[in-house]
């Protein structure tokens, strides 16, 4: 039995195809990004080694830091919106009829492609005929803004479809965690005279804390590498007002042919994401998980 189940040839045959694919298409490119970052390279001509020049330029590049700031603002915003999702999930999980259907309705935007979401919201934000301004004008607002053309508001306007896209996802996760709480625990508190708010705050929240912490990491890391929707909706514009790290990197490489410099930015994106992941994990780690 044990001999059959530890046959080296079989193991290699079954695991190597998958392992080779992720090695060649994920891990090697990640390492190469750091290496290409050391090169002066336009994607066509031969590379020329220039040491840390690209990285030094990146650190002094105001545009890069501006895009990084936008990415971190997005991360902050996404993390704060988790509280809203949590509140909705608490309501949804408190013996509401139709919660299953509602949860599925909430999830629908998450299933659409970023391109479809972006194109739809370009229309929603359209200054003269979009859904949003039609509603605002019907409510008596005279000059509603051109949401995506206004440098001071474009970034916040883009937050709305992002919130729209992910609401269902986080509500789904919190709902599942809340439904995992054993009923007798909540029942006992109720018999002892706890109000619904007290039950939510003192019993349910501590019990799903570990799940909440995982979602914080997901929201922050997801925000730092966010790309598709912004790239399609505004291309980072107007004038860099909605540029994020990934869109800045992508445009450097594939629009300006600065493959070396783009790689350096890409490698910084990787490093920043990893460092932030470690910090957030450490910051939210608890000594002991609550058992129930």
């Amino acid at each position, binding site marked *: 039995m044990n001999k059959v189940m*530890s046959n080296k040839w079989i193991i290699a045959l079954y695991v190597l195809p998958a392992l080779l694919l992720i090695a*060649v298409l*994920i891990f090697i490119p990640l390492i190469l990004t750091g290496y290409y970052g050391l090169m002066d390279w336009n994607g066509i001509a031969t590379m020329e080694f220039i040491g840390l020049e690209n990285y030094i330029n990146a650190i002094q590049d105001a545009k890069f830091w501006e895009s990084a700031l936008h990415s971190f603002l997005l991360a902050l915003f996404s993390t704060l919106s988790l509280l809203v999702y949590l509140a909705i999930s608490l309501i949804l999980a408190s013996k509401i009829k139709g919660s299953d259907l*509602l949860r599925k*309705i*909430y999830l629908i935007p998450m299933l659409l492609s970023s391109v479809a979401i972006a194109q739809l919201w370009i229309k929603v934000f359209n200054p003269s005929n979009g859904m949003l301004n039609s509603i605002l004008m019907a409510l008596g607002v005279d000059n509603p803004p051109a949401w995506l053309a206004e440098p001071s508001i474009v970034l916040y306007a883009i937050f709305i479809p992002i919130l729209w896209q992910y609401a269902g996802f986080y509500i*789904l996760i919190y709902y599942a965690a809340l439904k995992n709480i054993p009923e007798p625990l909540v029942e006992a508190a109720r018999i002892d005279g706890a109000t619904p708010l007290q039950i939510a705050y003192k019993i349910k929240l501590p019990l799903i804390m570990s799940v909440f912490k995982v979602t914080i990491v997901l929201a922050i890391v997801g925000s730092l590498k966010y790309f598709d929707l912004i790239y399609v909706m505004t291309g980072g514009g107007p004038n860099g007002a909605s540029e994020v790290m990934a869109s800045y990197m992508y445009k450097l490489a594939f629009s300006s042919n600065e493959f070396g410099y783009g790689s350096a930015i890409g490698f910084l994106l990787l490093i920043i994401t990893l460092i932030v992941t470690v910090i957030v994990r450490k910051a939210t780690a608890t000594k002991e998980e609550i058992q129930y």
Partner: protein
Amino acid sequence: MGRIGYIILYFCLGLVALFQIFPIIWLFLFSLKDNKEIFSGSPFALPAEFRWENYVKVWEGGIGLYFWNSIWITGIAIILTVLLASMATFVITRMHWKLSKLVLGLFMIGLMIPIHSAIIPLFSMFLNVELIDNPWSIVITYTAYNLPITMMILLGFYYTLPREIEEAAIIDGCSIHRMFFRIILPMTMPVMSTTVIINMIYNWNEFVFVNTFISSDKYKTLTVGIQNFIGQYMTDWGAIGATLIISVVPILLAFLFFSNKVVEGISSSAIKG
């Protein structure tokens, strides 16, 4: 809690549902209107006349080809991903070898990395082996990048399979291949179907790889195709709406029929255990 309390709660939940669903309904409504009606009428009005010709026009104008590309690229990548992930998960969870934990760890790291950091070297790799502007570069990239999430969904199920099944099969003189393909794989049908549908959503909606690796119109998938297509019809809202609806219908249909699988897949891909 009083009656009024419940009414307020339902009102809040209903408002969120409206916010989530209304933009899509609005999209469907204007996909059946012409510009005159969209620009002068109320955005919430039903079309005076259902202009299905918007759909015919964009389908014949090139969306049909993108749709077909999306179907076959998504389909082949799903088969490859689920098969390779099942094989790898099987030997990692069921067979005995020293490096199994380390190899599993490598796959799980793949869940965390930002894909954009890898895209420049991937592009130059495909350029060197002449796979740029070749749909197979997309198929293998989808396969590789979806392996970690697929394995994560499969893992839990594989761990709970009873050992007795393997023991009985081996005592009966069954080879490992036969055991895997004839006994284990059919047993994992429920979780495999979850991974199929999650992979379908990911592949169907993927944008950045196709946008980077494919330049010919004839190989583009729907996401990138509609992006270019909308450029041509920039001012014809009805046509744009019809294009977007066509691109999201397959996923919405899958959700309508398999919503429990989608919910299960999304929750287990986010949180383990």
